């Protein structure tokens, strides 16, 4: 049976409902909230501030640090044990490399900019939601940026190329599934995060990466609007 109709009835290139806000955490220097379907992410930025221990400082530029964390009740199944895991450490690292290309911290030698991402609920696509929220938070904190970074997943469900897989689609058993989180700098179309889990042909990967461009640009507009709306 071919995958003609998506499990939740969306079009193949349609994302779930998106909500974005800036300045949601008053104590932070910058903050963002990003929800896509049932996956939501808060991000807070603290800094630039002096980095300790001093041995970690870079006299040429400020340093970006990212920390991704799922809240204990954010998984659909059992409680997620609090504290860092191998998974959260890896995602923290790829989040940092996804954001770094647009961020310029050369004005802040020896400093650090901390980005904390917390997920209260997840239904797949949490690293992408985290990157979108973090990008809003960095801009809200007034950090020099070339563009926002925007992210969403694309992939394959039973030979059909789709955008923004939810958990039910990731777990689809009727055929091959591939989940490809992608982060992009919308103005240059450069890709800053690319991971893949599953099975996909070269042709379909090309199709998926082509198909994901438009939704990513739409998400970028939502992020920009969130930042403007803060000053309404």
């Amino acid at each position, binding site marked *: 049976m071919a995958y003609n109709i998506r499990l939740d009835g969306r079009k193949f290139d349609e994302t779930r409902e998106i909500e974005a806000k800036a300045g949601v955490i008053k*104590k932070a220097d910058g903050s963002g909230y990003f929800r896509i379907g049932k996956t939501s992410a808060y991000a807070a930025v603290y800094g630039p501030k002096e980095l300790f221990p001093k041995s970690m400082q870079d006299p040429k530029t400020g340093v970006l640090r990212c920390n991704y964390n799922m*809240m*204990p*009740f954010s998984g*659909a199944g059992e*409680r997620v044990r609090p504290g*860092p895991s191998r998974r959260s450490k890896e995602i923290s690292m790829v989040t940092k490399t996804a954001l770094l290309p647009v961020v310029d911290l050369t004005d802040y030698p020896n400093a650090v900019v901390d980005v*904390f991402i917390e997920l209260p*609920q997840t*239904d797949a696509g949490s690293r992408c939601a985290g990157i979108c929220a973090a990008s809003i938070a960095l801009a809200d904190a007034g950090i020099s940026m070339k563009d926002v970074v925007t992210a969403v997943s694309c992939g394959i469900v039973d030979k059909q190329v789709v955008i923004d897989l939810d958990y039910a689609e990731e777990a689809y058993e009727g055929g091959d599934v591939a989940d490809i989180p992608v982060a992009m700098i919308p103005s240059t179309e450069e890709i800053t995060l690319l991971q893949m889990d599953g099975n996909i042909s070269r042709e379909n990967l090309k199709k998926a990466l082509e198909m994901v461009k438009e939704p990513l640009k739409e998400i970028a507009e939502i992020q920009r609007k969130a930042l403007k709306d803060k000053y309404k």
Partner: protein
Amino acid sequence: MNKDFKNHIEKSLSKNIRIDGRKNDEFRKITVETGIISTAEGSARVTCGDTEVIVGVKLDIGKPYPDKLDEGVLMTGAELYPLSNPEFESGPPREESIEIARVIDRGIRETGTIDVKKLCIEAGEKVWMINVDIAPINMDGNLIDIGALAVMAALKDTKFPELKDGVPDYKKISKKKLPISKLPIEITILKIGDTFLVDPTYSEEKLTDARLTVAILEDDSLCAMQKGGEEPLTQESIMKMIDIAIKKSKELRKFLA
């Protein structure tokens, strides 16, 4: 903190004026929402001024404690996320967050708020475990009172998942709610100089000489207490603080109705 600034605040407090214009016994504006987290069996978001806390409840099945073979288990955790305040750091839980979780836990557990005997599935083998996690999103003071209120709201919101071959099926949530029989409210009274105040902001908390958290039931009886801060308290002060707490608990209880 600057000594003169502290003096100034203490003087203002003695005239019943706070930094944000409130009276000493006045809470900030409180909002309570429940059922906000789809992945949790119960959840609540409580805001109080700029303080915002999310609480999620996850239910699973585990083995009972050897001394209480026919009772379910309630566990409360709190983490001070570095996202919520510039002074919180990543790493293992600090004294502060452990105290918050334990004080809230005590207020709920010791009173028999939840009838844990009704959480027993098979004595000695299988009982429901209630995992309550407190997650501050923005921390601007009074995390114990606001966290406790959010925990009660989330517990009231909690529904059991259905059991399939003795394992919870989180996709099928029943209409059955937790067996809650009491609604404790926790109120923390701060003593700064000679003044008592409620619902401190984060900057007011830093001026704390002493504090007392009191958990109070519907009939005004007390069900848990915790003294904090480095200064001692006289018996007279303690009784005064308890009186304020009982009065304020009635205001907060309305949010659980």
